[in-house]
């Protein structure tokens, strides 16, 4: 760390200057404890504009940047398929790493990198910013306190207007690069479900459907089975124009009540049998973002984006290895995604009498190339009832 006016500054390089990268860059640069050491991107054009107008050091070669600069940390916001390699290089040099979501495209990579980070005792974080949304944090607090009794089911949803017609030519439209609504949208509610319920023991009924895209999924539906008989449903559609922008929401049912939350508010219904936490009463309780949100030092596009950067910087400063969204927790989400991709290939698990899977219209089912080390689905036995998951 270098020093400016007596405060030791954390030197960070930002890698990848797409939509997320640029917004991270602005927040990193505005952070009073951070010195922006360099930016790195494959587009010489974007680098040239930034160098010309902001004077930042620029690199188009990531490895060269790591060799040449004395860094404390890197923030990686490149296309998802490049995450694993870049994270590994940074970890091998003992750097702290913030990586955009999804963490990796392979459960094996995610596990390996998590343990490498542990060995090196560095601070790691993945950009699941919803864990920094006040309302979603309040859900976590209430569930952990048992406010709605025993949780039986949690619904995770995400909708928004991203792919609204059959076109598009970026990496987000190629499945092998981590495109599609599964990685881009569904990862968010899945990560919240991991936070609330832990790691599922299985998934079933996964649909990775197309609405407009030829190669990738535009809608995602699945059932997740958790220990103790809890279940979750995930419902995601990024071809839904009725939403002005991406909306993520959570609904949790328990024996003593129900919780609904989105970015703006939390609505909690507590039955008479519930033990109401401080500030809550039986019946309806509504709390808004104005009371659930902590102020941040620099606001760009929602407190949660700033808060996650502030959390990362604070952990580096305080040498706190454990924290919100460390690699291990993001690896859980990567493993769920891998299970869902494998499961989606099965199609219906129970067929109508006399049904023939070959006769089933396949046009809406996506064929995924499975990431490495994902369990391959067993051949479907037609017409046979099958039970999976559950406890």
């Amino acid at each position, binding site marked *: 760390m270098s020093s400016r006016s007596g405060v030791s500054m954390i030197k960070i390089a930002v890698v990848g200057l797409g939509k997320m990268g640029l917004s991270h860059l*602005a927040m990193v640069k*505005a952070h009073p404890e951070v010195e922006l050491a360099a930016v790195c991107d494959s587009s010489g054009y974007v680098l040239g504009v930034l160098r010309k*107008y902001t004077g930042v050091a620029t690199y188009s070669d990531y490895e060269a940047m790591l060799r040449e600069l004395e860094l404390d940390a890197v923030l990686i916001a490149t296309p998802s398929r490049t995450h694993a390699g870049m994270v590994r290089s940074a970890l091998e040099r003992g750097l702290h790493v913030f990586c955009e979501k999804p963490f990796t495209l392979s459960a094996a990579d995610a596990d390996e990198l998590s343990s490498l980070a542990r060995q090196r005792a560095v601070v790691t974080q993945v950009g699941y910013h919803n864990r920094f949304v006040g309302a979603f944090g309040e859900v976590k607090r209430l569930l952990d306190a048992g406010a709605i009794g025993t949780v039986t089911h949690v619904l995770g949803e995400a909708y928004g*207007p991203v792919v609204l017609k059959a076109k598009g*030519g970026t990496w987000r439209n190629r499945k092998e690069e981590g495109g599609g609504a599964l990685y881009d949208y569904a990862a968010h509610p899945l990560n919240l479900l991991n936070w609330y319920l832990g790691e599922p023991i299985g998934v079933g009924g996964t649909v990775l459907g197309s609405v407009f895209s030829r190669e990738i999924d535009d809608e995602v539906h699945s059932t997740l089975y958790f220990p103790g008989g809890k279940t979750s449903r995930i419902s995601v559609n990024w071809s839904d124009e009725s939403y*002005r922008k991406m909306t993520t929401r959570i609904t949790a049912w328990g024996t003593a009540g129900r919780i609904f939350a989105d*970015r*703006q508010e939390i609505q909690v219904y507590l039955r008479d049998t519930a033990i109401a936490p401080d500030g809550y009463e039986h019946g309806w309780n509504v709390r808004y973002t104005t009371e659930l949100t902590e102020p941040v030092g620099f606001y760009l596009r929602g407190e949660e984006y700033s808060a996650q950067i502030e959390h990362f910087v604070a952990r580096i400063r305080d040498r706190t290895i454990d924290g919100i969204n460390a690699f291990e927790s993001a690896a859980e989400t990567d493993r769920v995604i891998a299970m869902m991709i494998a499961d989606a290939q099965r199609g219906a698990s129970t067929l109508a009498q006399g049904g023939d899977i070959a006769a089933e219209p396949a046009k809406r089912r996506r064929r995924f190339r499975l990431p490495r080390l994902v369990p391959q689905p067993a051949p479907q036995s037609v017409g046979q009832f099958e039970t999976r998951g559950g406890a």
Partner: protein
Amino acid sequence: MDRLLFGDNQFFGVNHMSEEKARAQMMRFQSLDAVIEVLDAAYDVGVQTFMCTTHERIALICDHVRAHPERYSDFAFYPCMPYAHKYANAVTEDGMLGALKRFLPDEGLMDAAIRGGSSMARKDIEGVTTLLIDAEMKMFEGLRTPVIFLQNVVVDLLLGLGFKDAFRIFAEHVQRRYDAEPGFITMNMPALLPVLEEQGIENPIVCSNINKIGFRMCGGLEAYEKALRERRFRAIAMSVFASGAVPAEEAIEWVCTQPNIAAIVFGASSPRNIGHTRDLVARHWELQPDLAGV
């Protein structure tokens, strides 16, 4: 500048409190008539400036105002650009440069070709920036736009990146081309002011959240109060009700006692609420009933 400005969040399903409420508003204001009815109610009680995004539906309101020049002789638009979501979604779909191409005027326009093409080649943002501004301003042709704002997502992105020249480029272009004053919306007002000053933008119009509970006032309530007391700029207060967290009377009473506030921008969906807010502001600022500009 009028002292009380009418915002447009309610028309487009922007509600910082509740997505349910936002959706209900979107349904209600799906019909242009419903929007015009509310705008008319505001206009008729002296709230004659409409501070609006460059959402494509605003073009329909522009058409309506253009078609009735006598009815709206004192009507002014304060456009706030760009409407960021259309760009953000386009970037997700087409990448950074692809999205840029999509929003630049169609080929065939000599000016666009020269300004855009050569400016892209020189990595000179001036040409591209002014082209984008012109594209966004197209819908307001022939209408009064005395102040043109840069939206907070862009202002704060540029502020964070340290892309300071962009503020000057924006200011100079809207002054020269539209004979308008530049305005800047921000969630980081105390941090923005010195940068605008450094860029030679004098006595700037800066719109930011200013509310009693410090909601989305980055840098903190105290820093805002200090800036209002000590810096030379024209402040426009938005989110004075903090999305409904502060009761109306209390909110207006507080904001009206702050120094150096040139105007308040507010949104409302009913003639009753518009009248109520107008009366509160008139009372606490001791304004003339017509809320004439100062």
